[in-house]
C-alpha cells in the first residue's frame, strides 16, 4: 500500500445483490491494507485478508473506542451503535467487559438455544402458513425473515413484539450510515432509550421470566450485577443485534440457495446438510454491511504496513471469508464444507454473543421452508433483487418468492 494510491469510497457497491464487489479480490491480492473514505468523508484503513482480519479482531490493542476524538466517523449523520453514548456505558474491555459478557452469555448458551428450537419452529411454521394464505408471490423478508428473530428476541427480553415496527425503525437509526439525518438518528435514539428505560422500570416493579428481569434480580453493581443504565443499554443492544442481522441473513441465505435451484434440490434430498449449508451461506454473504471498525491507540504493524496511533481500521469479514489462501474454491458455494472457520460472527473474545441464537434461527427457518414449501422459488430474476441501502448492515430490501 502507498499513501498516494487512489482513495476508494467505502463500502463498495456490488454489481448485484448477491455478488461480491470486485474490489475485494483485487485488494486481497494487491493491497490488503488499503486506504478508504467512509460515508462520513473520514478516512480509514480497510483490511480484506483472512489472517489480518482474524488477528486484528482478536487483538485487544485494536480497541472498540470509536468514540475517541480522532477516530474516523462512519456516518456524517450522528453517532450510532459503534460510537454513540451507549458504547461508553458497558465496559468494552478487561474484567468489566468480561463480567458483563458472562452475565448475559448464560442466556445465549447452545443448550438454551436447543431448548428454544421447538418454539422457534412453531413460530416459523405459523409465519409460513400466513405467507401462503396471502397467496403467491409473497415477500419472504417481510413474512418470515424479519418477524421470526423479532418474536424470539422480544420474548427473551420480555418486550412486546407488537412494538416491532418501532424497534425496527430505532434499530435502523442506530445502524445509520446515510439513510437518516443527524436530527432523525438523535430523535430515534432518545425515543428508544426512553422506551427501554420505562420497560426496565416496569420490570423492576413486576419481574417476569426474562433476561432483563433476571439481570435486575442479580442486584446492583456492588452485588455483582449491573446498574440500571447498563441494563437499559444492554436491552437496546440486544434488541438491535438480535433481530436486524439475523433478519437480513435469513433473506440472503434463502436467496443464495434459490438463485441456483440445484442447491435447494440437494437440500430437499438431504436435509442433514442444513447445518453446513447455513455456515456456507454465512461465509458467502456478499452483502454483509461495512464490517467491524476498530481504533488504534498505539502504532502497530499489519501485513508489513505500519499503522500509526489514531488509525481507524475496518475489518471486512465478508472479504476475508472469500480468501483463497484459507478456503478451497472460495468463490464456490459448497454446502458440505467442513470445517468452515468463517469470520461472519467476528473472532476472539468479542465474537458475536448471539451466534448460537442466530445459527439456530437460520437452521430452523431452512428446515421449516424445506419441509413446508419444497417448491419454493424466486419470483424475480436474481439480478432484480435489491439491497438495503444506507445502513451499516446489509440485506435485501425484499425477497419475492412463489411456491
Amino acid at each position, binding site marked *: 500500500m502507498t499513501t498516494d494510491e487512489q482513495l476508494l469510497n467505502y463500502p463498495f457497491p456490488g454489481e448485484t445483490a448477491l455478488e461480491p464487489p470486485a474490489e475485494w479480490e483485487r485488494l486481497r491480492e494487491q493491497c490488503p491494507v488499503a486506504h478508504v473514505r467512509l460515508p462520513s468523508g473520514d478516512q480509514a484503513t480497510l483490511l480484506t485478508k483472512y489472517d489480518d482480519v482474524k488477528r486484528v479482531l482478536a487483538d485487544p490493542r485494536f480497541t472498540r473506542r470509536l468514540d475517541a476524538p480522532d477516530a474516523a466517523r462512519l456516518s456524517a449523520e450522528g453517532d450510532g451503535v459503534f460510537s454513540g453514548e451507549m458504547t461508553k456505558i458497558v465496559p468494552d474491555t478487561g474484567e468489566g467487559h468480561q463480567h458483563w459478557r458472562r452475565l448475559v452469555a448464560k442466556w445465549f448458551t*447452545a443448550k438454551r438455544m436447543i431448548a428454544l428450537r421447538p418454539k422457534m419452529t412453531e413460530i416459523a411454521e405459523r409465519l409460513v402458513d400466513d405467507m401462503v394464505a396471502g397467496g403467491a408471490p409473497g415477500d419472504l423478508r417481510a413474512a418470515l425473515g424479519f418477524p421470526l428473530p423479532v418474536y424470539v428476541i422480544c420474548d427473551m427480553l420480555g418486550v412486546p413484539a407488537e412494538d416491532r415496527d418501532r424497534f425496527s425503525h430505532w434499530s435502523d437509526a442506530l445502524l445509520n450510515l446515510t439513510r437518516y439525518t443527524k436530527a432523525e438518528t438523535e430523535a430515534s435514539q432518545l425515543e428508544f432509550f426512553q422506551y427501554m428505560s420505562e420497560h426496565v422500570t416496569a420490570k423492576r416493579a413486576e419481574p417476569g421470566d426474562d433476561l432483563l428481569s433476571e439481570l435486575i434480580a442479580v442486584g446492583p453493581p456492588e452485588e455483582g450485577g449491573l446498574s440500571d443504565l447498563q441494563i437499559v443499554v444492554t436491552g437496546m443492544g440486544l434488541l438491535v443485534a438480535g433481530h436486524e442481522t439475523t433478519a437480513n441473513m435469513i433473506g440472503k441465505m434463502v436467496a443464495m440457495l434459490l438463485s441456483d435451484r440445484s442447491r435447494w434440490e440437494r437440500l430437499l434430498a438431504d436435509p442433514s446438510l442444513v447445518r453446513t449449508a447455513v455456515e456456507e451461506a454465512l461465509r458467502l454473504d456478499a452483502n454483509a454491511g461495512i464490517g467491524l471498525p476498530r481504533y488504534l491507540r498505539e502504532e502497530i504493524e499489519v501485513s508489513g504496513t505500519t499503522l500509526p496511533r489514531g488509525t481507524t481500521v475496518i475489518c471486512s469479514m465478508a472479504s476475508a471469508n472469500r480468501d483463497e489462501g484459507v478456503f478451497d474454491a472460495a468463490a464456490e458455494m459448497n454446502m458440505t464444507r467442513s470445517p468452515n472457520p468463517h469470520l461472519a460472527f467476528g473472532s476472539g473474545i468479542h465474537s458475536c454473543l448471539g451466534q448460537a441464537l442466530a445459527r439456530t434461527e437460520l437452521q430452523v427457518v431452512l428446515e421449516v421452508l424445506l419441509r413446508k414449501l419444497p417448491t419454493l422459488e424466486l419470483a424475480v430474476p436474481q439480478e432484480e433483487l435489491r439491497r438495503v441501502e444506507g445502513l451499516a448492515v446489509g440485506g435485501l430490501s425484499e425477497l419475492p418468492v412463489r411456491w
Partner: protein
Amino acid sequence: MSLRVSVDQTRCCGAGQCVLTVPEVFDQREEDGIVVLLEPAPAEELHRAVREAAAVCPTSTITVHED
C-alpha cells in the same frame, strides 16, 4: 489413533459453537456459558467433529492432541 482434547476456560467467550457441533464432548456452564469438557478422550466416531469444533472456535480455546 488416539485423540485427546483440552480446553482453556480462561480463553472461552461462550460462543457455544463446540456444543452445537459435538454435544457429546462439550457443554457450557449454566451460570456464564463458559465451556465444560465432558469427554477428554472422545470415541473415534467423534474425532472429525471434535477437530471441526477446535477449528471453528472463535477464541482457540480447544486444543486437540493426536498421536
